[in-house]
């Protein structure tokens, strides 16, 4: 059971929540920006709270963009981490890592909906091992102003103003727009499903 879990460290806030969540599940995450440690880990978590352009610049300066693109073990992007795995973000017109070929767009209110989208919302059409053991319409905690569009990589959808990708997967890259580390037992189940993926 003892596996090496790297949590990519960069200039983002509230990364400690991810470490605490791992700890509650009985795992110890290593917070690191060291390429060798990241590459040699069994699982990699790419968390994120922050702004797309400055974060992408930071990743490029550190050479982490190429490291992340070439990872072959299971990777979990969270929130901004998910958006940065996509192709391009409207947030300051930022080219992202391009691993998931989806666009990230800004929420435009249609009927005076609040932006950012903050709070608990339902996960629809879940179809992936990440959601094993969860009932349809489980609630997860979201905080974001930008969203990834729907596509073949979408493995869960949420409706807020528009239907968008609540989670995506392509090859070894998994990602959630919501925060599993803040989503109660539902989030813990998703994290533990990710950690249980066979190498």
């Amino acid at each position: 059971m003892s596996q090496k879990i790297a949590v990519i460290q960069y200039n983002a806030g509230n990364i400690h929540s991810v470490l605490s969540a791992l700890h509650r599940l009985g795992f110890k995450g290593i917070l690191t920006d060291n390429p060798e440690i990241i590459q040699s880990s069994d699982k990699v978590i790419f968390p994120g709270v922050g702004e797309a352009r400055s974060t992408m610049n930071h990743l490029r300066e550190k050479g982490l963009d190429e490291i992340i693109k070439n990872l072959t073990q299971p990777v979990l992007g969270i929130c901004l981490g998910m958006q940065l795995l996509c192709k391009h973000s409207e947030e300051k017109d930022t080219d992202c890592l391009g691993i998931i070929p989806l666009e990230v767009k800004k929420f435009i209110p249609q009927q005076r909906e609040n932006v950012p989208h903050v709070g608990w919302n339902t996960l629809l059409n879940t179809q992936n091992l990440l959601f094993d053991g969860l009932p349809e319409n489980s609630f997860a905690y979201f905080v974001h102003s930008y969203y990834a569009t729907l596509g073949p990589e979408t493995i869960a959808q949420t409706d807020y103003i528009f239907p968008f990708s609540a989670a995506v997967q392509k090859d070894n890259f998994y990602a959630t727009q919501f925060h599993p580390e803040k989503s109660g037992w539902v989030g813990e189940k998703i994290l533990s499903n990710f950690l249980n993926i066979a190498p």
Partner: protein
Amino acid sequence: MLAKRIIPCLDIKDGRTVKGVNFVDLKDAGDPVELGKKYCDEGADELVFLDITATHEKRKTLAALAKNIAQHLNIPFTIGGGISSVNDASYLLEAGADKISINSAPVKNPNLINQLADTFGNQFVVVAIDAKQINGEWFVYLNGGRLPTDIPLLQWAKEAENRGAGEILFTSMDHDGTKNGFACQALAEMSDLVGIPIIASGGAGNIDHFSEVFTVGKADAGLAASIFHFNEVNIPELKQALKSSGISVRY
């Protein structure tokens, strides 16, 4: 569908919960983390911790509390009490707080909202407003409701939004402690005026009051303290009742 949120509020003094909380099933109901965890397990959507300690050791104890909570709870939480600078806030973010609540400080220095929002993002900044109705008009009060101002409630709420607040926590001092229901009319007016979530506080006495605050009051979240602490309203029953009346809640 986005769920309406139920938020228990815990008052903290010197690292302990106050308000004479009494639970037979808790080893130590004075322990904010143990009480918070209980609410978390019962289905609370978020928690608010308000520190009312008045010592200069405050910053350290508040950060230690935030760290302890972040390690044990798997839902978002807000921490507030005397935060008056970006520096104060960054300690709390580091310690794992999801949001901070500011109240008197931004009234004295409105630019604080801009600074906090620019540094940490709008989602991190909850502007708490205490207000009271005088001759039919609502005015903002400071320092825990002891200091009146001539600032109209709605004007301040709008300014807070424009400056970058991510949410507003509005406490009606006229309703607080009465258990006669929330200030639904003022809440609805505020909701029509601003485009950010509103947390309603003050006046919750029973399940119907929550139902009212989400429909008539158009609030996004309902906050209460003593009715949860004294188990006058039980969170699972509250959520069941809201769900039955067609209000979207997380269960």
